[in-house]
């Protein structure tokens, strides 16, 4: 069988950022429901911040950190692939697409999860 010029494992970089975002989203959604059930929104942690709010912010920051690291690594892979590619050869599309995809995962994390800073959590 003819071997593919692009190893399949490189494809994972296309979706890695969104896998991290989806995992963060599920964790935050589950944490929200569990916190409301156990009354974490009325338990004050410090400075008027409830346990619920603190937990949601930590989950958001963890998701943001994970997606950002993936975006940074994708950017490095793209930079490395560009320098290796001969001037006449086509640009390293897979690496470029992976980088853009991971950037959209960072944006998705901010847009969908950052509102946990301000929105009402329970009731």
């Amino acid at each position, binding site marked *: 069988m003819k071997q593919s010029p692009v190893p399949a494992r490189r494809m994972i970089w296309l979706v890695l950022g969104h896998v991290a975002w989806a995992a963060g989203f599920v964790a935050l959604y589950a944490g929200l429901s569990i916190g409301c059930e156990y009354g974490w929104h009325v338990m004050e942690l410090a400075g008027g911040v409830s346990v619920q709010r603190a937990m949601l912010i930590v989950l958001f920051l963890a998701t943001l950190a994970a997606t950002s690291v993936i975006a940074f690594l994708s950017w490095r892979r793209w930079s490395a692939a560009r320098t290796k590619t001969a001037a006449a050869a086509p640009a390293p599309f897979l690496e470029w697409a992976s980088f853009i995809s991971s950037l959209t995962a960072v944006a998705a994390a901010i*847009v969908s999860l950052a*509102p946990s800073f301000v*929105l*009402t959590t329970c*009731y």
Partner: protein
Amino acid sequence: MSRSAIKRICVLGVTGLLTAGCTGPLSTLEPAGPAAASIALLWWIMLAGSVVLFAIVIGLFTLAFYRPAWLAGISARNWILHGGITMSSVVILLLLVAAFVLGERLVARPLADPPLAVQANGRMWVWEFSYPSVEGPSLTTNVLHIPAGEIVDVRVTSSDVIHSFWSPRLAGKIDAVPGHENVVRLTAERPGTYRGVCAEFCGVGHTQMHFTVIAHPPEAYEQALADAIAAETTE
């Protein structure tokens, strides 16, 4: 009858049919309280936004046919970047902010002066309402009595499957989940009769599972509720 007259009648007829859905006892576009008004406002914002976007897209489309030179200077990259990414991102973000701001108004957060609470229990295929403010048994079936102009928290649950409590002119939908209580906060600005339905498919009787909300003048509320409970007991 001339051809243009027939065309005009057809256009007016179709417009009339389309706009007939904008009013009526179950219309979300005819709000009778602040919660329903917030939801209706979001709908109007979305409609206005979609009309503007449609006009822009059709305008550009028309230019591409009749004045292609006007658009020749815009590169393919800019079409994708600004038309496909910038414009859609801005629109979605604005909608999201509007939805968050309006959604926060619907939240039944605790108030310093606790509002009147009523219980709503869905079961196949009736709505049972009870009134904690009344001593003793207080059940009304398929009719919810509330005072007009006052905030009311409807505590919704179910004793069998998942139902959904929805009185479109007063508030949004809220699920009635067995073993769990959800709260929808509503206010009827004026005395009147408002219809409601079960908004979650719950079996063969789902379409018959409707109810009525009667908002009484505040001074007549207690007596009207007592009469309704007495009538229910004697039935």
